[in-house]
């Protein structure tokens, strides 16, 4: 571990913490524009976070310590996953702590705690949301793992930093298997981030909400942490997508100049990605919940075919 490694690690964490709400704001802004509304402004997520942190946090009488703990666990999981994803540089001292498989585990842990906390209060909506969330989760995880495995097969490593180093800094090669993995990854990230074809992030309608039902009982700083964790999750998923499929611009180890250039590159890629997300969300209609298994089965299938294509066409 050296100074430049520490610096790039620190930069990566700070970028995630500060830019994640901005990305959410950017997506919401574009969603509003595309739907002919005037948007709430790019900085709205920051204002909401400040408001929620100032407000008093009200907890139900029947809540156990688990309920108070869950927001911190979720936030911690998301922050750690943002720290090990190579967003700006592949020189991350924390990255040996968790590889791609552990990353999926981190997402799963956050999800399990949120689901348990939602059930903890004992309201009907909480357990309804928790069940739906776990339904989506158990279908999305194998697909996400297969996507990451496809990338690992190409670069012979499950560490995200090494995958990116292999993809970004070698000769340019077109990988057909990554095309399949890319589509599968898009489908999975819509499901995991509670985006429109699967779940509407702005709805509060009992029958259709999945994610909102989970956090209905939270308020004050707990809700702020959860909202921040949701933004971090969107940021983390966008960065995994960018790192696997558009890895150009991410700095190597021992390259301070590239590290400075990596920041505008990442902002540019995230801006385009956020716009595309808003566009797809506007163009799609929300699915019935019983269509979701079919949607995620397609994602899993695409990812598996990606792996098979890798073996057939070689590299």
């Amino acid at each position, binding site marked *: 571990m050296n100074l430049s490694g520490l610096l790039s690690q620190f930069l990566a964490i700070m970028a995630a913490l500060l830019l994640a709400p901005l990305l959410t704001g950017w997506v919401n802004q574009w969603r509003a524009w595309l739907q002919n509304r005037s948007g709430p402004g790019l900085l709205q997520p920051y204002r909401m976070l400040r408001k929620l942190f100032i407000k008093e946090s009200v907890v139900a009488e029947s809540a156990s310590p688990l309920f108070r703990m869950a927001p911190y666990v979720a936030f911690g999981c998301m922050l750690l996953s943002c720290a090990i994803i190579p967003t700006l540089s592949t020189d991350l001292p924390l990255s040996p702590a968790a590889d791609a498989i552990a990353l999926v585990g981190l997402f799963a842990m956050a999800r399990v705690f949120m689901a348990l906390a939602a059930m903890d209060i004992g309201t009907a909506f909480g357990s309804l949301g928790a069940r739906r969330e776990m339904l989506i989760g158990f279908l999305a995880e194998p697909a996400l793992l297969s996507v990451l495995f496809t990338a690992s097969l190409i670069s012979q490593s499950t560490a995200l930093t090494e995958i990116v180093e292999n993809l970004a800094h070698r000769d340019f090669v077109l990988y057909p298997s990554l095309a399949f993995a890319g*589509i599968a990854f898009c489908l999975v990230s819509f499901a995991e981030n509670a985006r429109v074809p699967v779940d509407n992030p702005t709805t509060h309608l009992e029958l259709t909400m999945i994610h909102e039902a989970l956090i209905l009982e939270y308020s004050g700083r707990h809700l702020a942490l959860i909202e921040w964790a949701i933004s971090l999750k969107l940021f983390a998923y966008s960065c995994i997508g960018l790192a696997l499929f558009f890895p150009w611009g991410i700095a190597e180890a021992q390259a301070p100049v590239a590290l400075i250039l990596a920041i505008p590159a990442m902002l540019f890629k995230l801006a385009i990605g956020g716009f595309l997300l808003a566009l797809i969300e506007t163009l799609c209609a929300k699915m019935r919940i019983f269509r979701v298994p*079919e949607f995620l089965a397609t994602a899993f299938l695409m990812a598996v075919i990606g792996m098979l294509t890798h*073996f057939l066409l070689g590299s």
Partner: protein
Amino acid sequence: MDNLITQLINLFAAVILMLAFAMLSQRRILTLIHLFTLQGLTVVASTVAVAYVTHQHHLYYSAALTLALKCFLIPYLLHRLINRLNVRWDIETLINIPTIMLIGIVLVVFSFNLALPIAKLSASIARGTLGIAIACFLLSFMMMITRAKAVPQVIGFLSMENALFFAATSATYGMPMVVELGIALDVLVGVLILGVFMFQIREQFDSLDISHLEKLKED
């Protein structure tokens, strides 16, 4: 440069397989026709790429023929057909779609395994894509089997022809021109005849459900 184009051919092959799966999972006839047109375009693109790398001029002609036929004429005929039959939306599948997809994976594994030893015998640049071509062939075949209505079955038949054409291009740089012209005409005439057939089926049974054809007598 040639290396990059070879990779491009592999990428096109992957896109064709992806579109075959998309067609397999599609519920709407109109989208099915759009997917079929896209698949035709991808086949044309990969044929042009093979022709460019190998300097086989007759492949340009067959690509042009495929473009005219499968991207313009046949989709146009299909659009007219579904407008006149008034069946733009619904398709029922005989097995539910996730199961079809899982069987699809098995078919892909089977054909990839089947193609590996064959591809070793071939010397063409796109030999790796033979497995994908076989997989697309089997998937279109399964689409014909699992659909209850006549129009999706015809589209399945046409996409099977796409897969065969792609297999011929990737394994042996295409068939002789005479054979290709013959097949193209066959497909065109096939679509016309099947179109007439569909009108007859609907006249007779008031629906396009093929299972009515199993009855031999009026009851």
